[in-house]
């Protein structure tokens, strides 16, 4: 160890030097606009602390990767203790930074040990049986929990709002999963179809008085035809070009919505969108003439929660339909063709699959579900504007799919809870949310490119698995 120490120190020092160079201007000198020009808030002390942490962090990680358990464990503990100790630091962020560095080192130290332990458990007979049963029951348990959730004692307005939001992203994630996960087409403009669905419902309901349930299929059809229209010319392109072009389309649709004031009311958006009705009953304290409220219909006292619970069940139903549809279509020829196309396009062509048509169906089906989700979004928000449909939104949905593991349905749920639920729940994290998204995408690609849930059964097996020779 003593012999390698200088090399390790040099490596850590270089890392710290790079970090210092990265942070010197952007972090060290914070510009502040106070009316008559810009002024500096000097944050050089913050930077120095961060660089020191990076130095020790790198050192600890190197120790850990070389199997020097005790030095790295000690370093991690010290960093963690410094982070949680009441030592005065310039910002709470730095406290977190130090703590996270400590935790990371400790995790890295125990990782080899934990990894072998998990692998041993997983490969034992009981572990295998448990895994099979777990995979079978986990979805069912989750489903029951989701159905029962509105009646749980903790389901107040805030929780329900969050649940509706998460489910919207779950549905969008499942929809995009068809395009990205199954067909392997990287769509960076998915939010465009979401926007088409939302504006379809907003315009048809406010201009022509159509109800939510009448517009829902129409919105899906509109979005799907947009998918066909946009997809047709571009689906011959290579993967990365396709990604950029879909992003271009997404931005074009947003810019058109922003500037075509006659159609979309421009940046001011469309307000007063009616919510969904329950067999003609509205969710409000008093019904408009000729209608009855849900409370009157059911003979129960009015509560503002009813609307939220109803919305919750609608989006749950829509999401489950998306999931069910995906699971079924995967077993159909077209679904198999999608997955085959993702693996090898040339081979597919040789086998007589028309790649353009096959991709087009995936694109249109994915767009259709985004359209459903969009009209639900408009009905829930009662106000939409182009702001809600920026590229960032597409990126969030994509990161949910990527984090969950492209093609994994349950992974999307976990990722949506993780990426949407946690930052909403801990409001302080809000500012760091997008950083975490970006970081997660980079790290997942580097360490677990198949997503958090790396395990995925192939849809088709050429040879059935036999039990032993």
């Amino acid at each position, binding site marked *: 160890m003593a012999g390698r120490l200088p090399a390790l120190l040099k490596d850590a020092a270089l890392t710290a030097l*790079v970090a210092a*160079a*990265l942070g*010197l*201007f*952007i*972090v060290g*000198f*914070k*510009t*502040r*606009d106070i009316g008559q*020009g*810009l002024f*500096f808030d000097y944050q050089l002390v913050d930077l120095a602390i961060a660089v020191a942490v990076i130095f020790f962090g790198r050192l600890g990680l190197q120790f850990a990767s070389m199997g020097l358990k005790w030095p790295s464990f000690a370093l991690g503990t010290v960093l963690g203790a410094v982070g949680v100790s009441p030592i005065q630091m310039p910002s709470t962020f730095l406290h977190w930074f130090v703590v996270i560095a400590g935790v990371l080192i400790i995790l890295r130290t125990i990782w080899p040990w934990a990894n072998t332990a998990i692998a041993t458990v997983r490969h034992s007979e009981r572990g295998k049986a448990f895994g099979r049963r777990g995979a079978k029951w986990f979805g069912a348990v989750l489903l029951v929990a989701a159905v029962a959730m509105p009646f749980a004692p903790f389901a107040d307005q805030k929780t329900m709002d969050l649940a509706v939001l998460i489910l919207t992203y779950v549905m969008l994630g499942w929809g995009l999963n068809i395009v990205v996960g199954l067909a*392997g087409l*990287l769509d*960076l403009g998915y939010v465009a179809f979401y926007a088409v669905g939302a504006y379809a419902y907003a315009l048809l309901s406010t201009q022509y008085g159509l109800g939510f349930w009448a517009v829902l299929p129409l919105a899906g059809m509109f979005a799907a035809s947009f998918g066909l229209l946009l997809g047709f*010319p*571009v689906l011959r*392109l*290579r*993967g*990365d*070009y396709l*990604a*950029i*072009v879909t*992003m*271009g*389309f997404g*931005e*074009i649709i947003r*810019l*058109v919505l*922003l*500037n075509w004031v006659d159609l979309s009311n421009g940046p001011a958006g469309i307000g007063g969108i009616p919510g969904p009705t329950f067999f003609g009953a509205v969710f409000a304290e008093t019904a408009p003439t000729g209608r009855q409220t849900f409370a009157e219909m059911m003979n129960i006292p009015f509560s503002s929660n009813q609307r939220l619970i109803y919305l919750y069940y609608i989006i749950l139903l829509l999401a489950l339909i998306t999931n069910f549809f995906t699971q079924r279509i995967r077993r159909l020829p077209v679904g198999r063709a999608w997955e085959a196309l993702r693996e090898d396009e*040339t081979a597919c062509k040789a086998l007589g699959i028309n790649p353009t048509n096959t991709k087009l169906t995936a694109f249109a089906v994915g767009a259709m579900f985004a359209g459903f989700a969009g009209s639900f979004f408009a009905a829930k928000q009662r106000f939409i504007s182009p702001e809600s449909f920026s*590229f*960032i939104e597409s*990126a969030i949905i*994509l*990161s949910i799919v*990527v984090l969950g593991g492209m093609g994994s349905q349950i992974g999307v749920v976990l990722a949506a809870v993780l990426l949407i639920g946690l930052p909403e729940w801990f409001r302080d994290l809000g*500012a*760091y949310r*997008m*950083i975490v*998204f*970006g*970081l*997660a*995408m*980079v790290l997942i*690609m*580097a360490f677990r*490119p198949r997503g958090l849930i790396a395990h995925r059964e192939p849809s088709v097996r050429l040879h059935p698995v036999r039990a032993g020779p």
Partner: protein
Amino acid sequence: MAYFSQQLINAITLGAIYGLIAIGYTMVYGIIGMINFAHGEVFMIGAFISLIGFMICAGLGISSAPVAILLVLLTAMAFTAVYGWTIERTAYRPLRGSFKLAPLISAIGMSILLQNYVQLAQGARPKPAASVVQGGYTLFSADGFDVRVTWLQIIIVVVTVALMAGFSWLIAKTPLGRQQRACEQDMKMASLLGVDVDRTISLTFVMGAALAAVAGMMFMMYYGVVDFFIGFLAGIKAFTAAVLGGIGSLPGAMLGGLLIGLIEVFWAGYFTSEYKDVAVFAILVLVLIFRPTGLLGKPEIEKV
């Protein structure tokens, strides 16, 4: 005629900036075949570093504009290059040999990460910059309209042309450029012949980032305002320029940048400025559909 000439001058200035960013896209694409989605963010960081650099210069009492510009230019190039190097090292290098879309997804993540890092560190509001170079020169007057070219525009075009000339020389004549072209053609063969591929790729990112920093500085001086979001649009426009000129081709990137500048300025000048970004996106889509090799690019042969 006067209006036209004025628009032409503005378009060339803008095109120079796009061209500088486009070189970064085209070089990276040429060598490792990926779209460096985070390149627009590198440009934005370059703009921020130069903004802060000028403020520090003012604080240190450097009042001579040429000295300040030169100092800030070199600083911004050096420090932004570190960003380029780090991005390649952390986000792309571990993914070589991963599945096809992995680097692009990682690049999108990197782009989101950098954008929000700057937003967090510097605040979300646009930063007005004090102008460093003022004044200009009236070329001629016609129809009661002065056609002016500002000193700043001259500086931008001169610096761009000088950099591009130097850069073309670097690629064409130096050992470094030779290694780079070798890696572009056949990475495995180049490494067998003793070219350090990792180092060459790193240097490609470093050079691209340095040029993006120059573009960022020009952009900051030209528009007088920067925020954390400028990288997105500028990045896409420069990427469009790279694609239009033929991705992988250096002269193509410069030509594409110029064309995009022309299209954007004349569209805004003669039609409506609301749809100028739509025009650029539409060109990107149209070029990719009808002529994916661009104007000067070589057709790509897909090997199975």
